[in-house]
């Protein structure tokens, strides 16, 4: 692996070397390195690009890394990754995609991830997206995440996209059955002319199913972000959506939260707040000796990474 690839890997998966556990690295549209373990099997799909990841029932405290890196221009990559998490398993899954594009041709990665989470299983899923490189070619990432959660399962999904991604459309659809719980934390920063659109659709089908969606977005310069969420309560359930946005310069954020309580015992809440950095936060940090620019940076860092 060369220096650029290694740095991308560090940024998207905090990896300094190939890990010893289950691992699948996809590089420039091809499978590059793969490790399987006795608990976690990774098999290539036969009829299309992508992999199936099988986590055996009752496997505890194991991790799977499936990073994707693109270091060429003009590549359009479409991949299907399906996760089958056995009942009572407890795993950490680290995905993420980094595009380093020094060319004038656009590179794009469309990752379709489907999670089948067994009863009582627990999953933490982390996905980081990064775009970089000096070329004028776009760095486009369009992830789709489909989640099916069986009884008493739990999933925590953290997505982070910092500067550099030219445009993204992120779609997440989930169906939750009895007593399943899903927490989603999405943090996005856009700059320049970048656009980021996210759409969540969560169907709370089971009794006492719960979902929490928290989106923190910062839009700088002339960038544009859209946040759409659709919570549908079809049983006794609880759902909460929170969209907080900070806008700077000429940026724009549009938030459209929709909640639909089909069952009379559904309890659904949405909150949305978009605005500049609060003046009193800047003043407070300036009384501690920071310049206005340093104070803005610190507030944004805390908001996105805190």
């Amino acid at each position: 692996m060369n220096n650029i690839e290694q740095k991308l890997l560090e940024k998207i998966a905090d990896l300094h070397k190939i890990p010893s556990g289950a691992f699948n690295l996809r590089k420039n549209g091809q499978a590059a390195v793969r490790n399987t373990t006795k608990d976690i099997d990774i098999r290539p799909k036969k009829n299309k690009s992508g992999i199936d990841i099988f986590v055996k029932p009752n496997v505890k405290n194991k991790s799977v890394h499936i990073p994707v890196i693109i270091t060429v221009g003009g590549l359009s990559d479409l991949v299907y990754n399906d996760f089958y998490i056995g009942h009572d398993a407890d795993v950490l899954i680290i995905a993420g995609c980094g595009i380093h594009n020094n060319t004038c041709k656009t590179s794009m990665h469309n990752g379709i991830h489907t999670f089948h989470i067994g009863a009582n299983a627990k999953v933490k899923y982390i996905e980081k997206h990064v775009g970089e490189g000096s070329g004028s070619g776009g760095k486009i990432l369009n992830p789709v995440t489909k989640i099916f959660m069986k009884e008493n399962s739990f999933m925590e999904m953290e997505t982070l996209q910092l500067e550099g991604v030219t445009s993204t459309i992120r779609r997440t659809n989930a169906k939750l059955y009895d007593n399943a719980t899903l927490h989603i934390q999405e943090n996005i920063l856009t700059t320049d002319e970048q656009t980021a659109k996210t759409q969540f659709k969560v169907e709370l089908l089971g009794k006492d199913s719960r979902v929490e969606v928290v989106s923190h977005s910062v839009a700088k310069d002339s960038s544009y972000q859209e946040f759409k969420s659709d919570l549908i309560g079809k049983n006794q359930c609880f759902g909460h959506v929170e969209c907080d946005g900070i806008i700077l310069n000429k940026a724009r954020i549009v938030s459209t939260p929709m909640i639909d309580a089909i069952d009379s015992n559904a309890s659904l809440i949405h909150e949305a707040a978009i605005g500049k950095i609060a003046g009193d936060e800047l003043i407070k940090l300036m009384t501690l000796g920071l310049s206005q620019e340093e104070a803005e940076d610190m507030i944004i860092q805390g908001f996105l990474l805190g």
Partner: protein
Amino acid sequence: MLEIKNLSYNIVESDKENNILKNINTYFEDGKIYVITGPNGSGKSTLSKIIMGILQPTEGQVFFNGQDITTMSINERAKLGISYAFQQPVTFKGLKVRELLDVASGKKNTVDKLCDYLSMVGLCAKEYINRPLDDKLSGGELKRIELAMVLARNSKLNIFDEPEAGIDLWSFEQLTKIFTSLKNSCNIIVSHQKKILEIADVIILLRDGQIEKIGSLNEISPLLNSRTCHKLQGEKDE
């Protein structure tokens, strides 16, 4: 240390000029505790904000150690050694207590050092340093952490805007101990509270945007108890 000359602050509301502060002249010396008191709306907090640079005066000048700081920004004043504790502590989404104490002190602190700052305000560091400074903390906790940030700065001039407001009963004795321990600095406290006035070396009584009197508690007390002035908090009804 700090000198205020011919300072006025006016605002225009509904086409009508409102004189919040009128021709204030006073000075503050090293090693002393000054309490600015007066009825609500007398201009106490406005004066403290002008000293920190949060508000700009309409007229007049502010000198700090002989240097005219009237047009200086907030952070330039902070770097000169002026600190400010807000009446309503500011909260942040995502910034942790430890990060803010590091910024306040200008260095990355060890857990032991953070513990020193927080224990001065009666908090246990381990429970707080990694917590976000957000509205999940109680008003009393936020107020104490606000004080800890000022203490971490070790400044030449500390301004406390109503430090007792919202503080719990941890509380007054510890709060006054903190102020009396800051002997190497000049401390300006905006307060209505009798126990805070009792530790003042000098009390500045403001009324209707003007200095009515500067003096000791004995000298100021008759004016405080008169019908025309405010009633102190913590004072028993006669």
